[in-house]
Structure formats: C-alpha cells, structure tokens
C-alpha cells in the first residue's frame, strides 16, 4: 500500500505533443480524466471542469478522489492498488454507472468507462465520463407521463361507466328513502310500528352501506396516487374489480369465476392491477354483448413462478386484421372506444415484470386474454 499513499514528487510540465493532445481532449463533449498508478490526475479536460466545477489547473496532480463522493473515495485507492497487484478488473473495460461529486457537494450519476494504457512513465488509466442527469430526467419525465396516462385512462373508464354507476347508486338511495318514509308515515299516522321498526331500520342501514361501498370503490379507483407495491393475494383484487365493472353494466351477463388453489401472492400496485381487470372485463362484456347467452369465464391459476389471470368471453373473437395493432393505443373498433384499454393494461403488466397475452379465438370461439404476473419473492424479501 505504501507506494499509493506517498506518490513521488511534483509532475513535470507537459511537452509540446502533450499540449496538442490536451487541446483535442478539450473539444470532447465527454469528460476525460487520465490518472497515473497513484491515482493522481494527469489530464482533466474542459468537459470535466464544467461537470465537476473544478479548474484543470487545480485538479491536476490531485488524487482523483476529489471528484468522487466520500464513500467511493475511501475505496478507490484500494481498488486501484488491488488491481495493480492482482490484475483483477473491477471496472476496466467494463463501463458502469457510478456517482460523481461536484465541487459544490452535489452528487450525481455518471456513466464511467475506464481504459488502461502502458506508457514509458508507467501505467495510466483513462476515464471517460458522461453526466447521466439529463437522461435520468427524461426517464423520470417519461415515467411521470406514463403514470399520468394510466390515471387518466382510469378516470376515463369510470367516466364511460359514469351514467351506469349513477344508476347503481340510485338503487340503494331509492330503497333507503322508501324505508325511511315508510317509518315516517306510519309514525305520523300513529300506527304502532314498534314491532317492525327495528327490522326496517336495519334494512335502511344496509342500503346506506351499499351506497357507501359503491362510492368507496369508485373513489379508490379514480384517486390519483403514487404507484406503489404491495404483496397481495390476486383473487380478492380481481373480485373487487369485477364488482366495480359490473356496477357500470346495464345488462346482466353470466360470469363464471374460478379461483386457482394455493396461488402464491404477487407484488403489485393493487389499483393498477384492478385497472387491468376492469379493462379486460369491460372488453369481454362488450364483445359478448351481441350473443344470445353472453358469458365470461374468469379464472386464475399458477404456472411456474407466475400467477395467471384469464378472461375469456364467448364473443366473436378478434379479427385477424385487428391483431397486429391490438395492443397499440387508439386502436379501437368501437364508436365510443378510446382504444386505450389494452395498451395501458399491457404497459402496467410489463411494469410489474409480467405481460398481457391474447389468444384471439375466432371461428365461434371468443378471445381469451391472459395477464401473467410474477409470483412475489419469498416472504423474507418482502419486508
């Protein structure tokens, strides 16, 4: 270790050809740092000056640690030393994402690739650095936009179902009103209602609760929230989503529901997964609506390390010409359809490390959509 902690005396001034090289390096868009075996900075180009807020004149001769966060800095000498001793490469020729430190203390992500050169003055290491912040920002913006879109699609689904949901709310409200008015009237007439009033009030309370549930389910679904992950059983989530979808239906449809046994839990954003179920079930209902006995099969099962949900209808299936664009946004055959349901659903599934697949059916067989989600990791990792 001695040789690294006490480098030899000051560096000699650059020669003429070195000076020419430096001016070329200064035109590079990427940061370039060359260090010697002792981690002393030999070259620090213009892009680096800007990236780290340190003047080249100040940087040259110093240990390269000055551009690293403290926790890297501590280990860097050791890495370099161990590489020189053992030849085991940790970063050379590989390139990876690391973090840099600006003179003002800001820590930021960098892509670093390191090359090695043997020179008459000993080994030198050339680092090429790219500030990853602009890329990270656009990734973040994209993620934000995507979650915005996912939310909007949810609102639009509820909006589509809005009139029907208002209808559904009318049912408990009607019953509630009539129960209460029945008591009110009997009371006004001095009828003895002591025997029945308890029972009627219970029914009224039941109806109020039913109205509350409808509102609650809608609210959970449309409220805008940060995406989250919870380890959950899939089946109860699916059942809730089916209920929500049926709320929005004018015509009844036969639903055949089968739950797999001993399904492993999944790590999901519950509302987003319910959004997929709502989309698939709405599509299935719409597809089967024209049939004499419209019916949907909704099944769950486990298949090597995944949990699968299948939604199969007995509609006409998917036309071969619609298949290539099926999962693209704005691909819709419906007059009022946005064509967002499947695009959003597949995006959500893939964000969860899963996928959304289709068996198009046809020739008398309805379409079958499969949502595949990875089973949650063993409880130890779940936290």
């Amino acid at each position, binding site marked *: 270790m001695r040789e690294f902690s006490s480098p030899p005396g000051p560096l000699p001034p650059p020669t003429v050809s070195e000076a020419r090289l430096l001016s070329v390096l200064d035109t590079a868009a990427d940061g370039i740092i060359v260090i010697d075996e002792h981690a002393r900075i030999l070259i620090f180009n213009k892009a680096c000056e800007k990236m780290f807020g340190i003047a080249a004149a100040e940087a040259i001769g110093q240990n390269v640690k000055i551009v690293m966060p403290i926790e890297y800095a501590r280990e860097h000498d050791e890495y370099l030393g161990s590489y020189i001793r053992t030849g085991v490469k940790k970063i050379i020729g590989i390139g990876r994402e690391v973090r840099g430190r600006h003179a003002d203390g800001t820590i930021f992500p960098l892509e670093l690739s390191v090359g090695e050169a043997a020179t008459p003055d000993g080994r030198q290491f050339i680092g090429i650095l790219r500030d990853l912040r602009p890329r990270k920002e656009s990734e973040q913006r994209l993620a934000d936009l995507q979650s915005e879109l996912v939310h909007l699609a949810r609102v639009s689904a509820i909006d589509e179902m809005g009139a029907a949901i208002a*209808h559904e*709310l009318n*049912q408990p409200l*009607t019953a509630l*009103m*009539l129960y209460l008015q029945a008591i009110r009237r009997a009371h006004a007439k001095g009828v003895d209602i002591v025997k029945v009033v308890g029972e009627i009030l219970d029914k009224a309370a039941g109806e109020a609760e039913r109205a509350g549930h409808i509102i609650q389910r809608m609210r959970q679904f449309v409220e805008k929230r940060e995406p989250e992950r919870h380890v959950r059983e899939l089946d109860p989530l699916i059942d809730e989503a089916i209920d929500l979808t049926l709320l929005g239906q*004018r015509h009844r449809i036969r639903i055949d529901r089968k739950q797999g046994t001993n399904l492993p839990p999944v790590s999901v954003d519950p509302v987003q997964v319910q959004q997929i179920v709502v989309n698939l079930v709405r599509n299935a209902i719409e597809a089967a609506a024209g049939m004499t006995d419209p019916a949907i099969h909704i099944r769950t099962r486990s298949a090597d390390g995944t949990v699968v949900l299948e939604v199969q209808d007995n509609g006409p299936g998917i036309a071969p010409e619609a298949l290539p664009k099926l999962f693209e946004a704005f691909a819709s055959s419906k007059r009022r359809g946005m064509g967002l349901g499947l695009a959003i659903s597949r995006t959500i599934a893939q964000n969860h490390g899963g996928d959304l697949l289709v068996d198009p059916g046809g020739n008398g067989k309805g379409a079958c959509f499969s949502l595949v989600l990875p089973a949650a990791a063993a409880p130890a990792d779940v936290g």
Partner: protein
Amino acid sequence: MRVHVVEDDAGVSDSLSLILGNVGHKVVAYPDAESLFKAPPPEGRDAVIVDLSLPGIPGAQLVRWLLNLATPPRVMVITGQSQSFIDHQLRGLQPTWLVRKPLDADTITRVLPAE
C-alpha cells in the same frame, strides 16, 4: 286491484312493496319479466311498476306487451338511467307514468293512492 312490481333489485323491490302495502295495496313482486309471464296476467284495474333495466327480457319489451293487452293495466316505468337511454329503450311507447329514481313515497302514493 293489485300492484305488480317487476324489479330485480331486492332492496328497491322490498321497500317499494312496503310502502305500497302500507297504503293498503295488494302487492305482488317479481324479480324479472319472465316470472311475471308465468303468473296470471295483470288485469285492467291493476297497476304494474316496471324497472327499465331488467335481467333477461328487457323492461321496455315487458311494457310493450302490457300496453298491448286487451285491457291494459296502468304501467309505471321506474328507472335510474339517463334520458337518452330511456328514449332509446321506450321508442314511442307511452307508459302511464315515468318516474326517475331515486323514488320517493309521495310520488308513488300520489299516482297510486290508497284504495
């Protein structure tokens, strides 16, 4: 006279029957049009309350059938659906009354007063 209630929502059907019963009407409730068809047809003195959104045979079709009987009963259509849905469903049918949900007891007893 009797009041027939064709409504698939158990809560609405039960509370409606309670109100009508309290006013003194004889009430027969059916969960769908099919079960009404299995019973003796309503008479001209009867009233039939029909929910527009029924499972199976649509409410509008039942209304059409009732209005075409030789001595048609009075028909009250109840619905929580939008006006465009109602117009589309009824298309020219003229029920005696159309009442939007939520219902209230006063409206019901005004059109179907105590005997």
